[in-house]
């Protein structure tokens, strides 16, 4: 944290400008906001996870003077577009919003994320370290982690057995298995190279050691096309050229069907995927298994994160204390958080839940009775916390999706796509007033 002190001061100044100093002083942990809760307060939360209102009502039960209304304004893109529009319009923001880890820097940059530190720092130790690092800057806390997506490998046991493929522990073995499967069972692919989802690309590159951004105030380092990216691009280009991986756009019906039909024999994916698969697939019940994420060096223990989200309070809320209290409750109240995992199927961020053997060790029939969460529990503790997203991550994701999809559709190599990406992102950052190095 020491090396970040310069950034902290700058951010604090920006933050104070945007937010006013209202939040910092009030809260005392354990006796939160006794005064504030005298009057009836209603908070508005924008969130997309199903049944979030249930937890919100649990909060109201505990703090009867604060009621919370949950509105679903869309997931992912649409959600952020609406937030941005409200920020641009200067009106219409909710009191709190669900926010993915990779969006925190962007909205922090816009000066709309309130510092929840006063309410949240007392519970900081309950959270998995990397998730806390991703939302905080020293004592300032811009969102309360809520769910996470440590990476692992899901694979089709039936396809692996039929084609005599060992579960690959390294990316080299993964590549060999891809080539072998393409030769032995044409029409079946080891995996789908999912470049149409920039989040996935960032996650697998994160594990490879790619650190494309470092922001300090208005200075930003951009290294999107470094050697790590190029090596990674060459790795996949070889498989694409050999037609040893499929290149379907992700999240389409076609893509889900390919997983269900055994056309795609594995998917390097996040901890929220097992339940998603289980809920979307009919034919492949009992055929899937989970294994650790393939490593770049044999015996390595480095993983990364894809997705997961937090609760953030907006600086515009007239009830900052109540909002901070609510966000902290949602993330850390054991009962509410347990519900996330058992009912809403989100992968937890609380150490107590990660260590809960009964919760994480439950066998799962969709995975042939394997306790898949145990794989992701190990991964959660191996996530390298040093990854930084850009303060304009949406632009990066959009451009990445454009350029990499274009290269898959035949316009140059993946390596070229990273060069184009670097140029475009540098031009954008410069245009936005950043000093780029």
């Amino acid at each position, binding site marked *: 944290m020491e090396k970040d002190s310069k950034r902290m001061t700058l951010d604090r100044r920006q933050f104070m400008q945007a937010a006013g100093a209202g939040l910092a002083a009030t809260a005392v942990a354990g006796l939160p906001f006794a005064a504030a809760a005298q009057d009836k307060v209603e908070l508005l939360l924008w969130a997309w996870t199903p049944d979030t209102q249930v937890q919100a009502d649990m909060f109201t039960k505990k703090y009867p003077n604060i009621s919370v209304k949950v509105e679903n304004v869309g997931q992912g*893109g649409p959600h952020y*577009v609406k937030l*941005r*529009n409200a920020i*641009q319009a200067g009106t219409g923001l909710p009191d709190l919003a669900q926010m993915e880890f990779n969006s925190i820097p962007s909205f922090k*940059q*816009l000066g709309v994320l309130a510092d929840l530190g006063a309410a949240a720092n007392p519970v900081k130790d309950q959270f998995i370290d990397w998730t806390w690092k991703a939302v905080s800057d020293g004592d300032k806390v811009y969102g309360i982690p809520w769910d996470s997506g440590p990476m692992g490998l899901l694979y089709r046991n039936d396809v692996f057995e039929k084609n005599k493929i060992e579960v690959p522990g390294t990316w080299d073995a993964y590549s060999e298995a891809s080539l072998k499967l393409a030769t032995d069972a044409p029409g079946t692919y080891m995996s789908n190279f999912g470049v*149409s989802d920039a989040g996935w690309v960032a996650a697998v590159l994160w594990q490879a050691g790619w650190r494309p951004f470092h922001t300090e105030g*208005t200075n930003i380092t951009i290294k999107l096309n470094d050697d790590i990216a190029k090596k990674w691009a060459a790795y996949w280009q070889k498989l694409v050229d050999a037609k040893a991986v499929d290149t379907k*756009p992700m*999240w*389409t*019906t*076609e893509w889900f*069907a*390919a997983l269900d039909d055994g056309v795609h024999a594995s998917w390097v994916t996040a901890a929220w995927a097992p339940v998603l698969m289980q809920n979307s697939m009919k034919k492949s019940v009992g055929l899937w298994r989970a294994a650790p994420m393939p490593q770049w060096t044999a015996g390595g223990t480095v993983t990364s994160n894809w997705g997961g989200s937090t609760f953030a309070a907006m600086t515009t809320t007239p009830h900052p204390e109540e909002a901070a209290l609510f966000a902290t409750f949602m993330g850390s109240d054991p009962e509410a958080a347990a519900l996330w995992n058992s009912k809403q199927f989100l992968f937890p961020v609380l150490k107590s839940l990660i260590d809960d053997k009964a919760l994480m060790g439950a066998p799962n029939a969709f995975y042939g009775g394997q306790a898949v969460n145990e794989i992701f529990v190990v991964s959660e503790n191996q996530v390298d916390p040093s990854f930084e997203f850009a*303060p*304009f991550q*949406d*632009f990066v994701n*959009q*451009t990445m*999706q*454009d350029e990499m*999809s*274009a290269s*898959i*559709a*035949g316009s140059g190599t993946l390596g070229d796509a990273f060069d184009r990406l670097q140029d475009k992102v540098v031009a*954008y950052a410069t*245009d*936005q*007033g*950043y000093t780029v190095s």
Partner: protein
Amino acid sequence: MPDAVATRRRGRVYVTKSVAPYLFLLPFMALFVAFLIAPLCYAFGLSLFKTTMVAGTQFVGAANYLKVFTDPSFWDGVVLLFKFGLMQIPIMLGLALLYALILDSGRVYGRNFFRIAFFIPYAVPSVIAALLWGYLYGPSFGPFGQLAEFFHLPKPQFLLDGTILGSIANIAVWEFMGYNLIIYFAALQAIPQDLEEASSVDGATGLQYALRIKLPLIMPTVIVTIIFSIIGTLQLFSEPYLMRNLAPGIINSHYTPNFYAYTLAFTNQQYNYSAAVSFVLGGVVAVVSYVFMLLANRRAA
């Protein structure tokens, strides 16, 4: 006294007469100003500034416009839409005209049924239409792909580089053909019956009557529909926006100018530049429509 009253009354009548039309216009003008003129002025104002994430907001004058004129992402989209329009508009209007003439010929049973049937796709929101066709185009899920598989034929690929523009054009034809058909049909119905009698007395066949008499008579309507279609084409947005999920490698985030403006504003946070792009697009639409009108008028003259 009577004189004074009369004068006053006359005066009042005079005032009322001149104010009345404006009073009647007021509701329209208020809405027109609030929802069209004011947003346009606001957008134009936006387009003269540049707001950045960390360097604040500056007045930049025409700089955003100059940037649009050299922005390949914008002009690629415009060129693409020209290609799209040259392919889609003649097919759509040609079919609409053909069906309208057939329906109007009086030789078809169930004329009302066909009229409604052709019109129904227009009542389907374009979002639904794009989703529906996206499903139909799917290589392994869609019925065309499954039919091909059943007969052991190569699967038709609707979503590749060379075919996707045609696939989108097909959706647009499906959606808007019926709408144009209804317009043509209404124009044809307005042609006086005696012209048909006169032409048959002169020995014209049904086909000659349709092509030599009816068609020239509804030409002004055709011109109007062409202009509407040009405007609609240059504003293409929802179909590529929704089909991007199916073919992200081909439909990028600046596939059409409207899509580009959307991306600039809502993903890239470049509201100012997005406003400039929208105005230039408006300019392109105006110029193309005007040029077409000139050409059409010259031919008519």
